[in-house]
């Protein structure tokens, strides 16, 4: 079969499932689940076939014209290369297991038809981003994932929290997408094309300042979608959605789309832009790690950890590309180090973060929707498999040497940071310690010690549909760090382009990772205590806790800005609108026409004699005009 046909089938399978669910299965939960799961299995199966048989590993590009607006040609097409193949695998693989998990997790939900339909729509939009071969197509799917994210965050429509969170996610993303769209237009303006292949050839020919501005505008979209500072505020709130959604969309795939996009357009970023991008990532990584200490909700802690890891990826892209520019050979290939560093972490993160979220989902499911970690405790006796897999996730994210996936991927990022930007290296190393500490806090409080509430006492192991994805993802979390284990077609990036430390640096990295992870996890046990009922830091050092809990007042500042500035401006504009546009322009025109109508209606009597009189006067007027009697009046 043709490669393009297979890619189309991969893309359209979830759309077909979503359409069928929308038409026939909104009230039939089992049918909806079957359709959605079948679509996910199709994606995974076809993409595996692609890697092992069909695709020869060279970049494959196909596109066709969709519409033409003057000189602007919009096309749809696929670009399959090392990067999109890896991302396709991540989305397909993690997506499938999360679909399976959802079957178990959502078994008592009354609106499963809507849920699984939304899940399929999401898979469709996400695959569109992954496969798109031009920026406009990517933008369309970019907005579509925004929509599906909105729809799925707001799944529990009866709660105010979910409604607010979905609205917030949508609006904050719009802010970023505004810059993104301007960036795309600027790209088209500068290069005359938006096709990724075409851009790669042209990218070096424009002046640096223009390219820098362009790159930063495109990065605005990444700020929104990948929840980087200062547009990170929507992601923690998005945890109001169902847990599988948090795992799939708000941890493993959609939020990583920003990082993927950076990799897809790496040739558009100049040194200056890369510096700014790396600092945004570094600051996000640090701040989010601090904020995680102020949270009691298991999903919120994981959300801040996602933010922090996304910061690592973005910083890894920025500094990896800089590293390549300084040490690599030639502009084009050198930048691949940025993709390698960020995509490796993206892949391992997708495994362990999906695992952690699904583990928290399993816990929440077992504890009757209790999400406060201080109400849990002692779960290791009740749910041994969940605890074991969750522990694998904690080890992976903390980066324990050789058994945690993040040990390899995070080390690559730390190494490029050390080589290019020493302050950032120090911050990221500190953040690695914090990561181990807050994940350890979550684990020792929620899983160890004794049960702290009735719901935790009555917890029991979840059904196989929930546990099986956990086990699979736990295996991947441990094995995902070993680049050699990736199949030949998938591993090109992680095997060749991940910047690895050599010699003394290698030892240094190993020591840093070992110390950060082990000390972090150990400290967590010492400081917080196994299964404690209250946050000991909150008891002993209230200012520290308050500092973390404050989230640096971003929400408050935004709310104040909206209430004080934006709402007033909106009121003013609305007043102008009422007065001028809808008042004078619309209603004024209508009034003039109406007045004229009233006058004209008077003339329209229906009496033939009156019409003859009008005719007669008209004739006189015409005669006078033709005879030149009116010239004196008309010329003045």
């Amino acid at each position: 079969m043709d490669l393009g046909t297979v890619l189309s089938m991969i893309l359209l399978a979830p759309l077909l499932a979503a359409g069928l669910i929308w038409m026939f299965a909104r009230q039939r939960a089992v049918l909806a689940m079957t359709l959605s799961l079948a679509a996910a299995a199709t994606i995974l199966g076809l993409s595996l076939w692609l890697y092992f048989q069909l695709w020869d590993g060279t970049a494959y590009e196909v596109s066709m014209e969709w519409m033409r607006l003057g000189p602007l040609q919009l096309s749809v097409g696929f670009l399959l290369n090392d990067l999109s193949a890896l991302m396709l695998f991540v989305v397909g693989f993690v997506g499938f297991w999360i679909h399976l998990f959802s079957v178990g997790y959502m078994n008592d939900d009354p609106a499963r038809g809507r849920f699984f339909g939304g899940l399929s729509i999401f898979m469709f939009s996400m695959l569109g981003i992954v496969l798109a071969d031009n920026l406009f197509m990517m933008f369309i799917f970019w907005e579509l994932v925004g929509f599906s994210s909105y729809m799925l965050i707001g799944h529990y429509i009866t709660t105010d929290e979910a409604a607010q969170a979905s609205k917030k996610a949508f609006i904050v993303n719009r802010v970023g997408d505004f810059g993104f769209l301007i960036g795309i237009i600027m790209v088209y303006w500068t290069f005359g094309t938006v096709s990724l292949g075409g851009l790669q050839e042209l990218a070096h020919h424009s002046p640096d300042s223009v390219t820098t501005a362009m790159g930063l505008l495109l990065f605005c979209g990444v700020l929104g979608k990948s929840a980087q500072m200062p547009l990170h505020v929507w992601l923690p709130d998005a945890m109001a959605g169902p847990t599988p959604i948090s795992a799939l969309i708000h941890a493993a795939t959609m939020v990583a789309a920003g990082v993927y996009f950076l990799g897809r357009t790496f040739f558009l970023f100049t040194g200056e832009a890369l510096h700014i991008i790396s600092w945004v990532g570094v600051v996000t990584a640090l701040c989010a790690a601090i904020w995680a200490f102020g949270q009691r909700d298991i999903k919120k802690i994981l959300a801040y950890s996602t933010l922090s890891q996304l910061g690592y990826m973005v910083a890894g892209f920025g500094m990896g590309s800089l590293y390549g520019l300084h040490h690599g050979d030639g502009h084009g290939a050198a930048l691949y180090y940025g993709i390698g560093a960020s995509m490796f972490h993206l892949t391992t993160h997708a495994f362990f973060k999906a695992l952690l979220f699904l583990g928290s989902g399993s816990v929440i499911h077992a504890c009757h929707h209790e999400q406060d970690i201080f109400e849990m405790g002692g779960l290791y006796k009740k749910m041994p498999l969940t605890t074991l897999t969750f522990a694998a996730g904690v080890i992976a994210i903390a980066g324990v040497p050789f058994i945690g996936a993040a040990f390899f991927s995070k080390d690559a990022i730390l190494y490029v940071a050390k080589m290019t930007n020493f302050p950032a290296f120090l911050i990221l190393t500190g953040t690695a310690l914090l990561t181990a500490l807050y994940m350890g806090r979550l684990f020792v409080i929620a899983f160890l010690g004794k049960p702290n509430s009735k719901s935790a006492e009555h917890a029991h192991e979840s059904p196989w549909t929930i546990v099986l994805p956990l086990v699979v993802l736990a295996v991947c979390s441990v094995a995902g760090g070993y680049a050699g284990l990736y199949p030949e077609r998938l591993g090109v990036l992680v095997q060749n382009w991940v910047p690895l430390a050599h010699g003394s640096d290698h030892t240094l990295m190993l020591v840093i990772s070992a110390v950060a992870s082990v000390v972090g996890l150990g400290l967590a046990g010492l400081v917080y205590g196994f299964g404690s009922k209250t946050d000991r830091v909150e008891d002993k050092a209230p200012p520290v806790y308050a500092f973390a809990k404050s989230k640096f007042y971003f929400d408050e500042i935004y709310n104040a800005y909206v209430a004080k500035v934006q709402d007033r401006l909106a009121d003013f504009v609305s007043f102008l609108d009422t007065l001028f546009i809808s008042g004078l322009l619309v209603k004024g025109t209508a009034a003039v026409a109406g007045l004229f109508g009233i006058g004209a209606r008077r003339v329209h009597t229906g009496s033939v004699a009156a019409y003859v009189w009008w005719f007669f006067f008209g004739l006189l007027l015409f005669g006078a005009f033709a005879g030149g009697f009116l010239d004196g009046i008309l010329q003045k």
Partner: protein
Amino acid sequence: MSIGLEDYLFVSILLFAIGFLGVLLRKNTLIVFMCLELMLSASILALIAFSRYNSTAANPLMEGNVFVLFIIAIAACEVAVGLAIIVALWRRIQTVELGEIKELKH
């Protein structure tokens, strides 16, 4: 005295004025209709008079006469249609007074 072009034109204008005033002032549809025909006749008269007095020895054809025959034929058709409308009006609303016929206003 001999009868010249001016005399014909005078009669024509007179006929036209009578017809016009009739259309303006009379209320009975039948009479208005007859007045319309009168105006038509007035213009025919003017046309034939011009035609007659414009003829020369070199051009004796007087093409206006042919036109007049056409106009009379068409006027006959028009009268047939017009009278039919008036009869239909009577059948419908039992009046031919112009002041009461206002339906086309709507």
